[in-house]
């Protein structure tokens, strides 16, 4: 079995950062914030930077400093950050039924429930919304299109609000652990060995589901129902050993997104030498402790 090429992944992340003036980077400008999050968190999990150190040196809410420390020079991005953090609109986006809209146009989605609850929890402002209604909305959802990404948002929101007791953990755990691909045509198509996780039946396994499915399994304490060792192997098989980075499936092109989710998955699987990641907040545990518990 291969090993984690941690040093290579660090170089890969740094090289992406340097390429930010490339054509691709310009076209994907709106994703810069995501990229910063994926890249920085990956570096932290690999023990290369301490996101916590950023928070220790500076006030968490001093957005200007955080932003400049992270080399996000654009004022526009700073403005977005400021809006995200200071705008009480996050709370105002809650609807009467407890759900959240993404913006003034009112699209409702569990993504927004999770994001709103996450933001407000990090800011110690959960009291600004009706948590009971938010939880009630999530627990009464009718999943017409069941997807692990939506499950993650729901389970994450419930975990952050201390409401996991609303979930039938055995039933959900079974549904989630069935996503580990064992055999069948799908494996032949994807050139992958057993062990990866997919999003829906008959879909190809994909490294990013090691985040969506796995974090949910960890939150409801059913991760021992899957074959962790095989999943570790699957993720390691998706590494570009030469140039760093992790792809969705073996032999595909790498990107920062899947590199983050692969590394995050390995952290949740307690791969040796990695920092622990909080499955609900999607941040390193020490960062969450500092922000939420003030430790």
């Amino acid at each position, binding site marked *: 079995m291969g090993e984690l090429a941690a040093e290579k992944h660090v170089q890969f992340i740094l090289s992406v950062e340097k390429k930010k*003036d490339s054509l691709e980077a310009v076209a994907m*400008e709106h994703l810069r914030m995501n990229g910063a999050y994926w890249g920085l968190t990956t570096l932290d999990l690999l023990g290369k930077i301490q996101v916590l150190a950023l928070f220790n040196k500076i006030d968490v809410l001093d957005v200007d400093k955080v932003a400049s420390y992270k080399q996000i020079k*654009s004022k526009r991005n700073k403005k977005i950050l400021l809006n995200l953090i200071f705008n009480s609109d996050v709370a105002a986006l809650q609807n009467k039924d407890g759900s959240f809209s993404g913006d003034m146009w009112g699209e409702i989605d569990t993504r927004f429930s999770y994001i709103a609850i996450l933001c407000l929890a990090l800011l110690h402002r959960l009291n600004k919304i009706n948590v009971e209604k938010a939880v009630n909305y999530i627990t009464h959802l009718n999943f*017409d299109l069941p997807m692990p990404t939506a499950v993650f948002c729901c389970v994450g929101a419930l975990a952050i609000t201390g409401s996991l007791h609303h979930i039938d953990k055995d039933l959900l755990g079974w549904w989630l652990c069935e996503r580990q691909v064992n055999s069948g045509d799908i494996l032949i198509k994807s050139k992958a060995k057993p062990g990866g996780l997919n999003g829906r039946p008959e879909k190809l396994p994909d490294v990013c589901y090691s985040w969506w499915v796995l974090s949910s399994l960890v939150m409801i304490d059913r991760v021992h*129902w899957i074959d962790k060792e095989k999943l570790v192997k699957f993720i390691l098989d998706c590494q570009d050993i030469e140039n760093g980075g992790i792809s969705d499936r073996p032999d595909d092109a790498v990107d920062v997104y899947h590199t983050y989710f692969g590394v995050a998955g390995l952290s949740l699987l307690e791969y040796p030498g990695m920092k622990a990641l909080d499955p609900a907040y999607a941040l390193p545990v020490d960062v969450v402790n500092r922000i939420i518990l003030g430790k």
Partner: protein
Amino acid sequence: MREREMDSDEEQLWVPFKSRPEWSDVIPVEQDDGPNPVVPIAYKEQFTETMNYFRAVFKADERSPRALQLTTEAIGLNSGNYTIWHYRRLILETLKADLQNELDFTDQIAQINSKNYQLWHHRRWVAEILGTNATSSELEFTKKILLGDAKNYHAWSHRQWVLKELGGWENELDYCQELLEEDVFNNSAWNQRYFVITRSPLLGGLTAMRESEVSYTLKAIVAHPENESSWRYLRGLYKNDNWSWANDPQVASVCLKVLSANNDCIFALSTLLDLIRHGFQASEELRDAVDAIRNSNLVEAESDLTKTICSLLEKLDPIRVNYWKWRKSILCEGAK
């Protein structure tokens, strides 16, 4: 996630804004994050200039036909940018523009990337305003997208929204049928089928549909016992009615049929386990079928049928061995 933006043909025809008379009064606004080390690519120039003019009209909150046209160009270059789409809606509202054009516009964007969140969000906004006038166009649009990508989550989600909000249920079950005839492993089509039989106001709900759906599903299972989706669908047909689940002889007999074909079918075994858990009494024939599989897999006999099934599943579904062990352990607790 990677977007293919406009292709090179259109780039050739592009006229810079500074050379267009109708834009001569506008002073473009540069991005204010310092000097951008410029890579001299024609495409990038177009991108930068378009965005500079976009910033100018956005700042002035100009809601004019030319600003609308500008957003068309800007979205073509950068279809994931939320701000441009958002601004486009403001302009459309102000101009009270004909929203039929928006359907064509989003159609074109979908051809570039049908997994763009902004595109679907915009499409819903338009359909919401057009109301039932949009029902057939939206069903056709999603059908077209699903033809190229049968599992496109956004398209399914949009389609379900249309059905719930605007209607158009009449042919939906037939549509699912068609998709399943093409590919019986298409989980999205099974999923949609479930959506239709449980939600359509024309069909009378799950209980009314159960009989015909069960017989349809059993046929699909017998043809492809390895299809996770059809087993899952079958279980869904008895949602909140475990008594009927355990007491419908058809379910047990499909398990028997699959298992006695000496098929090491995980789904049949786990279905049987689930049936017994809800009170089903297994026949001699079923016990024999399980026993035969047990023998051929060299699994030791257990004190009762359910434990034997768990042991078999531990062997046949090794990736979830801990789950099946847990299932067995709670059986023991129940027996105490």
